[in-house]
């Protein structure tokens, strides 16, 4: 990180330059003035370094230590090199969970983006009244607290009295009477994924709709005059505008969905039989629940590695698109 302390400043306060002499020359600001920004930044810097920077370093250090409950109490430092990584990476369960997390993330992101894009395109076709109704509905879904949403979904998918099973039976699908949606990991993750998409689609849809509004009407008229089909118009007029927004949303959703913990944990704590366990849940189970902090830290570091690849791409894109002004 770039140094935040101005090393060119001598320790003592230099004599303030006499005011009368600065004719046209840039006046060198007095010491206190030059120190001011650093003083103002100090609380934020201290916080970020000690509560984000230090833990980020600590997680790497911990991943090379043998740190169980015993060592935690005795305070013993036992370095084990890459043993934790060897343990994690040689565990076939880890690879099952990693694959599951990747597939789950990919499915959620794809569904969210397709859903968001469709809703955004739909919004443009709607009358004002229907559009506002849809927008309010989406705001509600988006605003809902995750834990509240989780409990509602559990209630809707309840085996005996859940409204979904009742509705399916009413529609003639009698096999869904008392169907248990949480009997298998796949089914559990599908419900969790639905919940995640339900809350994420509004955000994507609003962002894409804002992009759509920015496209001049003339372009569509011109395309119409040229006899372009709906698909051609979409490809050559709409898509070029939406592409960067879609890309940005993809990155954000990837970052979010990969590390989802709350929803997965709140539904079935990674069950049944660990079949809906994802990497963040594994990290919790290894570390907090069973006290193998070194191993859990290795899982964390592996997660961070995956996430940093995506994050780096995302930041690069932002800076290049000048969305971010440094």
């Amino acid at each position, binding site marked *: 990180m770039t140094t935040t302390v101005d090393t060119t400043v001598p320790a003592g306060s230099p004599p303030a330059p006499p005011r009368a002499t600065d004719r046209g020359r840039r006046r060198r600001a007095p010491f206190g003035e030059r120190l001011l920004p650093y003083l103002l930044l100090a609380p934020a810097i201290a916080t970020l370094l000690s509560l984000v920077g230090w*833990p980020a370093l600590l997680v790497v250090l911990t991943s090379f230590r043998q740190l169980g409950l015993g060592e935690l109490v005795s305070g013993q430092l036992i370095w084990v090199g890459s043993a934790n990584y060897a343990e994690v990476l040689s565990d076939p369960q880890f690879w099952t969970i990693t694959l599951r997390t990747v597939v789950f993330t990919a499915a959620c992101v794809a569904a969210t983006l397709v859903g968001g894009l469709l809703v955004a395109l739909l919004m443009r076709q709607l009358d004002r009244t229907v559009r506002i109704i849809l927008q309010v509905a989406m*705001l509600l879904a988006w605003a809902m607290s995750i834990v509240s*949403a989780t409990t509602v979904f559990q209630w809707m998918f309840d085996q005996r009295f859940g409204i979904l099973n009742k509705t399916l039976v009413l529609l003639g699908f009698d096999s869904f009477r008392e169907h248990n949606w949480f009997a298998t990991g796949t089914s559990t993750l599908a419900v969790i994924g639905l919940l995640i998409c339900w809350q994420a689609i509004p955000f994507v849809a609003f962002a894409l709709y804002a992009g759509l509004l920015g496209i001049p009407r003339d372009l569509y008229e011109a395309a119409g005059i040229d006899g372009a089909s709906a698909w051609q118009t979409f490809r050559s007029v709409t898509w070029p505008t939406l592409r960067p927004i879609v890309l940005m949303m993809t990155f954000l959703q990837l970052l979010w969905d990969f590390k989802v913990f709350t929803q997965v944990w709140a539904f079935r704590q990674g069950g049944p039989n660990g079949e809906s366990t994802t990497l*963040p849940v594994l990290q919790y189970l290894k570390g907090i629940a069973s006290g193998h902090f070194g191993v859990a830290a290795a899982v*964390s570091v592996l997660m961070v590695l995956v996430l940093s690849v995506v994050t780096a791409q995302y*930041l690069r894109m932002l800076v290049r698109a000048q969305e971010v002004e440094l």
Partner: protein
Amino acid sequence: MRASRARRTFFSVVGVLAATFFAFPVYWMVSSALKPTNQLQSTDYDLVPTSITTQHFATALGKPGFLAALQMSLIVTLTAVLFSLLAGLLAAVPLARLRFRGRKGFLLLVLVAQMAPLEALLIPMYLMMRDANLLDTLPGLVLVYFAATLPFTLWTLRGFVHGIPVDLEEAAMVDGCGRWGAFRRVTLPLLGPGLVATSVFGFITAWNEFVFALVLFSDESKRTLPVWLSTFQSAFGTDWGGTMAASTLFTLPVVVFFLIVQRNMVAGVTAGAVKG
């Protein structure tokens, strides 16, 4: 003409269906909270409650732990937001107004911290708080939420400060205000809406946060609302009415705040990313 009317009707129908999809769970939460228990635990099909009761809300409020959890959530959330607002504002002003060495580096630090997956720092945070004897204490959680909301707060506030023309401050200084006076009398009042929006974002983040609240508190009697709510099965059994009432109460402040700042929301969420 005819075709276009059919088209419009078609899209309207799809639009209403989509709206139903998004609104239904919210409706179901509130309506279940208002239904008497015998209508919830029933195999009859009823989308609209035939009678309404506030009994579940009374149950939820009266459940052991709810008020304690509410109090704890409020204290932790508000303190953390206040801290990040203060530290964020202090840092945002020089970042937006002054040129100094290390400025870009610091902005990059903030951006990286904003994108850092705090969930992946669960283990070291736990160990740090344990070493500092802050497990099962409010300050421990406040610190985590402070760190979680600060990068975003700082970045957004910097955008808002940036948006206020520096000329205004200079005019005030010409009129005899000191630098501090100009800031307090001119910039600060103009920052009002920005401060509100930013603190609402922070509030929503901290209010909803789950995993750190779960990990840093092992003491069952001390929980924040999300953790308390997630353990409803032990607290409520199969009392879905009570659960839905508690969920409604928990989500209510978020929805209200959300509606206040919804205009800034898309821009806000992509932040670190926004120009402000």
